[in-house]
């Protein structure tokens, strides 16, 4: 089975062959790499930082996250199980609109969060009943943390 190469959480089409790359400069400092290379006759500069299974790449101001193989954890916001509501980024909970046992409609706000002075709602992605609520008002969350579980969903 060929490994899946994910770039910004989406699989890259076709195989990848590093022998087509002519690397003219490679500098390494801890997890950080600086590369200059030719690909199909054109020069590129890239900054690559390895963090665990993920490679953070910057080329021409554009940032990418590259990972090889199947991801261990579903990234935030791309949950296949629509009933699991996760924090989309590092944030703080400023209000909770639903309690365990409450019915909830798809699109309805479950909690209100704040990140860098910006407030937003975290809304249910499926209709159902709130079966678990894992956060409290004032709590700081890491991106990807599970906020609530909604059961019986038909999103």
């Amino acid at each position, binding site marked *: 089975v060929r490994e899946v*190469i994910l*770039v*910004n959480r*989406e699989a*890259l*089409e076709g195989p*990848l062959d*590093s022998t*087509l*790359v002519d*690397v003219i400069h*490679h500098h390494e400092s*801890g*997890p*950080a*790499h*600086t*590369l200059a*290379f030719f*690909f199909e006759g054109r020069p*590129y500069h*890239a*900054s*690559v*930082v*390895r*963090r665990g299974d993920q*490679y*953070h*790449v*910057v*080329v*021409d*101001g*554009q*940032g*990418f996250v*590259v990972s*090889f193989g199947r991801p261990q954890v579903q990234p935030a916001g791309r949950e296949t199980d629509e009933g699991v509501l996760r924090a*989309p*980024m*590092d*944030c*703080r909970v400023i209000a909770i609109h639903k309690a365990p046992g409450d019915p909830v409609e798809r699109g309805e706000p479950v909690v209100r969060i*704040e*990140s*860098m*002075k*910006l407030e*937003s709602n975290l809304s249910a992605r499926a209709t159902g009943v709130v079966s678990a609520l894992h956060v409290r008002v004032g709590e*700081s969350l890491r991106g990807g943390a599970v906020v609530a579980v909604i059961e019986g969903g038909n999103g």
Partner: protein
Amino acid sequence: VSREDRHFKKILVANRGSVATRIMRTCREMGIASVALYSDADKGSGHILHADEIYYLGPSPAEESYLHIEKILQVAKGAGCDAIHPGYGFLSENPAFARRCEEEGITFIGPSSEVLQLLGDKIDCLELMRRMRVPTLPGSEGPVRAEAQARSLVREIGLPVILKASQGGGGLGTRIVRDEAELDAALVSVALQSRKLFGDGTVFIERYLPSARHIEVQILGDRHGHLVHLFDRECSIQRRHQKVIEEAPSPNIPARDRERLHQIALHAAHAVAYRGACTVEFLYDGRDFYFLEINPRLQVEHGVTELITGVDLVRQQIRIAAGAPLELDQASLSTTGYAVEARVYAEDPATLLPAPGTIDVVRVPYGQGVRVDTFLEPGTEISDFYDPMLGKVIAQARSKEVAVRKLTFALRRFVVNGTLRTNIPLLLQVLEDERFLRGEYDTVFLEKRVQYRPPGEEARRIAALAALVVRERAAAREVPPARARASGWRRGGWELLP
């Protein structure tokens, strides 16, 4: 350093990030010592590397650090500072802070607490400007307290209107109403929101211009009643009422209108006998200018004005605060070419939502006419406690066309790598937009008329190849090939194999 420049011995910079490094740079140039503050979240922030002395302020939340008036004053007194520069944001427009500085005998580098009080109250300020015949948008004269009052006003000035918090600013506590049926609910919601955000639920109404540009004029005034303008800036490229790309001078204004704009701005600053650096903000619908507000502080975008006028605005602020007369007169001021600034944020370019994280690599662009105001260091953590701005990249050249090309290249070479995202791809897209180059935009251009294009398959493939090269080279080094090891032993030596 001339004696004349030694206005203060030591200045405390009551701020963080890019603006703190910017202020410290001028302090150094003037031979004045500078003091930096930091919170728990800012232990790895580069701004503390630029000061002569650094002091710990407290926990990360701003209320316990950069907004804590008494803690800041305690540090200032303990360190023997004779002045405080508040930068922008945080306490820069807080009359209570200015008053406490005045009481403690420490110079607040900015206007008096009375002027801050007046300008912070949008209703009082608008009333004064109307009295002084500064053109304003049609709207309520004073606060709107009752729904009936709001309805009759809306019938008089016409829809759409914008509801604003009297104590608001930066787009917070505002709401646009396009349909009279929404008016009552909007009034309640803005009042509630502004009570929560600013501790005051007073609301006023203005006519809303669906398509207008945001243009502002830089002003300097001394303690002796002299005021000069330093020309205009264009700040229409915004998201969530926050500026993202700024230019100086503003394009596409007929010369006579531009001259009139500068005079109106000077007149508005005279009306409050302004002392220090301030910005008079206007909306421009292609025909008329409408006064919005006076920002009584250094602006984020002050750098574009500095690059076209050659004037160091922070130096002027410090001199004015020390009581020195203006060293510039209107006739000696002029502009050279054009400057454009892009604000780089830790933000997802597609959703425009904050994308904080840790910085592993930072490489700042360079070259003639390229200026970068930033505070980033490897290891700097961009937390969710403060504004997610990473820095500003500014380019100056003889024409807009050349400056924009310069800025585009500089942004491509500005490497900020780590677990955060940056808005650089979106900035590049705006800079390459024909409408931006022609100056054909308004304040909703970025949000409504620019559709972010995520990187294509080709760009994603290049990124994946770079990661693959790093992975394969690391793998090759970690596990030496079995053949090499075996043959090395067989020969009974340690010689290197080809």
